[in-house]
């Protein structure tokens, strides 16, 4: 019991400590990446473009948490990864510009933009 309490206290304090250094997502960078990478590719794929305002905040959160892109054929994360950016940067300026951004930061940026631009977000957004 004592050990469990200590463990819980340790985790809680660590979370607080990590929160102090938590990344403050940049929705504007997320906006550029979403439009320039996600939308530009979707626009030429059969699925077409997907407006941020086509889903609610909860739906976007669930989508990102599930991390299933193309109905589970691959992951969302891989399209935000440095490896993916490196693979398309010769033909995509946003991928080139954000080539060095850590994966999790860029994913958080995109998530922040989608949350803000969601149907019930602070500023429902289109792809344009």
């Amino acid at each position, binding site marked *: 019991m004592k050990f469990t309490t200590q463990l819980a206290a*340790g985790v809680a304090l660590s979370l607080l400590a990590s929160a102090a250094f938590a990344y403050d997502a940049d929705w504007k960078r997320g906006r550029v990446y979403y439009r320039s990478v996600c939308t530009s590719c979707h626009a030429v794929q059969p699925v077409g473009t997907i407006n941020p305002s086509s889903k609610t905040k909860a739906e976007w959160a669930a989508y990102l948490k599930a991390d299933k892109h193309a109905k589970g054929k691959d992951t969302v994360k891989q399209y935000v990864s440095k490896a993916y950016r490196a693979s398309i940067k010769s033909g995509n300026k946003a991928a080139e*510009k954000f080539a060095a951004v850590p994966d999790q930061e860029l994913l958080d940026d995109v998530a922040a933009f989608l949350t803000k631009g969601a149907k019930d977000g602070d500023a429902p957004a289109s792809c344009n």
Partner: protein
Amino acid sequence: MRHALIRAALLLCSAGWLVTAGPVLAEESQPEPKPLKLTTTADHTKFKELQQTFNSGPEVTKACLRCHTEAAGQIHRTKHWKWEYLNPETKQTLGKKTVVNNFCISIASNYASCTSCHVGYGWKDASFDFASEENVDCLACHDTTGNYKKPPGFAGNPVVKDTEFPPGSGKIIKGIDLTKIAQKVGKSSRDTCGACHFNGGGGDGVKHGDMDSSLAAPTKDIDVHMDAEGLDFTCGTCHKTSSHDVAGSRYTPTAKDSKGAHVRGKADNGNPATCVACHGNGPHKSVARLNQHATKIACQTCHIPTYARGGIATKMTWDWSTAGQRDAEGKHIVKKDAKGRIVYESRKGDFTLAENVKPEYAWFNGNVQYTLLTDKIEKSEQRTPINKMGGSPSDGKSMIWPMKVFRGSQPYDPVNKTLITPHTAGNDDTGFWKNLDWDKAIPVGMKDSGAPYSGKFDFIKTEMSWPITHMVAPKDKALGCAECHSKQSRLAGIQGIYIPVRDNNKLLDTIGWSIVFLTMLGVFGHGAIRIVSSRKH
């Protein structure tokens, strides 16, 4: 006890390490550096002054001013605060407080609506306290969340609690969290400037044509400087701000900048927002002839081939004379075109809109003479200029500029022969947008403007010119020679200058072609003689 402390310390360290570094190490072998904000030197969430609940804009400003003690005083000196400007050339008192336009016409008697774009709180009528520091709105320019909004009708105040507006309409304006916004302040951005400047004239892209929300995160094709994936200029990159005063003016634009590129330390550098301020007076390196063009032609003329290029239409005409119609049930009418854009509203009349618009062109020397409420006007076949752009081919100060010329029909007083400032916005019995009654709206508006009204009104055709200077295209999209040097020249209406191909002067053409013919004759003749003489030897 000692063991317990050690165990706790170990637990803290290990759990902390797992939480902070675990996910990173799981994905990559190299740990990522700690996130660092590079766009600001202060994390405002850490300031105690901002760790409180704010229920109004002025409460936020008071907190800001505890550290930024001089900021409000600086704002007080600016056009953004005063909405008043004395043009030193024409001696006209201008600024939004005074001028009339042919969009929503005037702010007089419509303060509570129009001042949603004022950098202040509470300007609901002429009694607004311009000396108040706490009425300065810091968030309008320094919000980074994109969530700060000041809806029309609240005299420049944000709405902090869900509010039904207009009362009884059933429409709810969501309240915003000022504390979260205040803790995230930062540099101004295209989004903050654009909140007002993209929406001039009552909607996205309506007024300027070269400024709309497509510039919030534009591609290179829309604006080569603001390209969000490239140079990523903010508005402030060109409109270099000093002590909160933003460079650049619609009232006294710099039409011809002969001062060259700005150099640090050089005194009296002039307007930093011109093209020349960065590019100098001879910007074309490979084709020197283009630099000769740049002595008479504004950079914008060639480098902004069309405006409203971002997929958002701009208004081109506005006919107030058709406003006021109701349907069979007496309700307001709204008509839309095939693209879903409003082309008629009972409140406002008929509109036309357009995208990818070729500008009109005019000689412009930077002098702008406004038609104010005190000026006499005559109804005629000619449109009355709301602003007259000065310029001529021979004054040495003019360049050929691209313009958006906005044409409309608006109310005027045929007896006093003046423009009219009607009371339009407002949820009261005299507001035209509510009751569609000019006879109620005009007397109230003119009284608030302090101008005489005869009791009679008519509509007069007007036009207003807006120099085009944003939405600079990539150089490969700049105008080609034939756009001007042809019979269908874009510069067909420009007088006082000879433009080859567009213009015909028989004598000049004969002389020119004769020189070409004689030159060719000389070259071939010389060649023939050389060939013949070489065969003889």
